[in-house]
């Protein structure tokens, strides 16, 4: 396993290491003796990285430790992206596979729904959903939890048709193969055929696009934060970026750091998606 890893191209190694690091910090954040992530320092405000002892990545204009905030931000960004892709991908693939396998009216209805959702620009739709479902009023703003929940749901809705269409087209291609007919001819039930013959063949394509989708969602979350309706209060990378934007002149690293984190993550997920797809093409040319 490890020897195999060493043989992979450098891009693969870097992407894998970065994604592993992000996932690791997401899962283990609570185990580290970090200080309260949004605590304000009395001694250092807006200092750049490596300038003040105790603040490796410097501090924000308000005096927040950037290292701790970034680690903490990783958690929320990853959580929103991964959860919405897993749930959206699950629902989307299920619907897409069923539509392509059973065809008929169900397929037509599902395809139209997918196309309808895809026709709405995803930022506009998230904006609309969040402003309707998590608006609160000026006296009593909606709770942070509710906003994150609605944000995740709206991104899930964006993901469903993307992966749904991939699953549908891939299933169309596989379900007309002879081995499906052969399996049918020995009396295997449709659900069993889907489980045994369709899903194993469709899964790699969905996985490849799933990685891309994580990147897409992460950028969408950042964009929504900048528009002021994403995760509130600097709790995610996008949110840190939104706060830092105001202080760009005085403490530019407040913007660079979250941007770099989002950038690296998106590049890594894209690389992974590409890598899986390239291997998939190779495999398909063999069979």
């Amino acid at each position, binding site marked *: 396993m490890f020897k195999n890893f060493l043989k992979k191209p450098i891009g693969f190694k870097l992407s894998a290491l970065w994604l592993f690091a992000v996932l690791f910090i997401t899962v283990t954040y609570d185990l580290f003796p970090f200080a309260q992530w949004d605590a304000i320092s009395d001694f250092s405000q807006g200092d750049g990285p490596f300038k003040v002892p105790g603040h490796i990545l410097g501090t924000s204009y308000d005096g927040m430790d950037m290292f701790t905030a970034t680690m903490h931000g990783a958690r929320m960004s990853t959580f929103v992206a991964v959860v919405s892709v897993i749930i959206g991908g699950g629902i989307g693939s299920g619907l897409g596979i069923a539509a392509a396998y059973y065809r008929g009216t169900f397929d037509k209805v599902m395809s139209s729904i997918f196309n309808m959702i895809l026709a709405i620009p995803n930022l506009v739709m998230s904006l609309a959903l969040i402003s309707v479902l998590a608006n609160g009023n000026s006296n009593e703003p909606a709770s942070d939890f509710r906003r994150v929940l609605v944000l995740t749901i709206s991104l899930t809705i964006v993901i469903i048709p993307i992966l749904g269409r991939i699953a549908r087209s891939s299933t169309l291609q596989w379900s007309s193969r002879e081995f499906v007919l052969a399996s049918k001819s020995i009396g295997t*039930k449709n659900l*069993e055929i889907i489980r045994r013959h369709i899903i194993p063949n469709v899964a790699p394509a969905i996985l490849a696009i799933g990685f891309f989708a994580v990147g897409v969602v992460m950028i969408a979350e950042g964009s929504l934060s900048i528009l002021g309706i994403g995760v509130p209060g600097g709790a995610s990378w996008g949110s840190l970026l939104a706060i830092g934007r105001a202080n760009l002149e005085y403490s530019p690293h407040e913007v660079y750091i979250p941007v770099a984190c989002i950038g690296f993550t998106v590049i890594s997920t894209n690389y992974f998606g590409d890598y899986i797809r390239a291997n998939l093409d190779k495999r398909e040319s063999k069979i």
Partner: protein
Amino acid sequence: MSKVLEVTDLSITFDTPRGNLRAVNDATITLDQGESIGVVGESGSGKTVLSRAIMGLLPGTATRTGSIKYMGKEISNLPEKELRELWGTGMAMIFQDPMTTLNPVRRIGAQLTESLTVRLKLSKKEAHEQAIELLRRVRIADPEGMMRKFPYQLSGGMRQRIMIAIAVSCKPELLFADEPTTALDVTVQAQVLELLSELRKEFNMAMILVTHDLGVVAGHTDKIAVMYAGDVVEMAPTRELFKNMKMPYTEALLKSIPRLETPTGTRLPVIEGRLPDPTKNEPGCPFANRCPYVADKCRAEKPPLKDTGTGHLYRCWFPIGGEK
């Protein structure tokens, strides 16, 4: 002897953008237990459609009329759910191209035990043992090792043996073999056919062997149905057919098999012309335009299926060797 299959006046039409395509016209076939029939015809004559229609595996664009009785029970109008009960345990099919009928991402063992666990409800361990036994039956060396292999590691002949093992795994009464040797090497063809005949006798299965090669059916079937443009044009016990051929089309098919005795450089006889357009319903015998013995009557009127009284049926106005 009980009848396994009785097909009466089966017609199949496909709804296509160019109009209704008649793939099979009024086919009538009966099959006793353990009996085998060869369905022969050139590409596009409707032989594959016929076998898939009997089994109920046609796509939704096809319409079927006529009656199909399996073990005396009408099955042509059963919903798929009830047909599925028959598939595998009652009727099973071997497909033409073993390169595409195995799932490329699953091990042979998983695919072979599928029918055993799903249909016969065997436990995993029992299914495994049964699968090994089946592999031994189809003469695979090292069955244990085979269970762990992926399809791409096998040759075409091996894969077809696996497909045969899967098809007979639930001991069906009726086995459809849809051009089982067409995609295989000549050297392997004979072995696979021999294996099929052997298994058929062992399990007392009835078999429908679909092929375009008269040579294939000659040694392995009890009777032969020759199809042309969706019609069954001649049907007779194998021996009788070869001895006493009535249809010019059957004769032409037999002539177009290459022979070793002919001197080098001899042109291979072919049947000139093409099948008539199946979307048009033209009068006359569909073979008229390609028939060497064609007469005016052939172009005007379609001949009915005549019975010589000895189980030999043919569809021709001027059969070879006269009316009787």
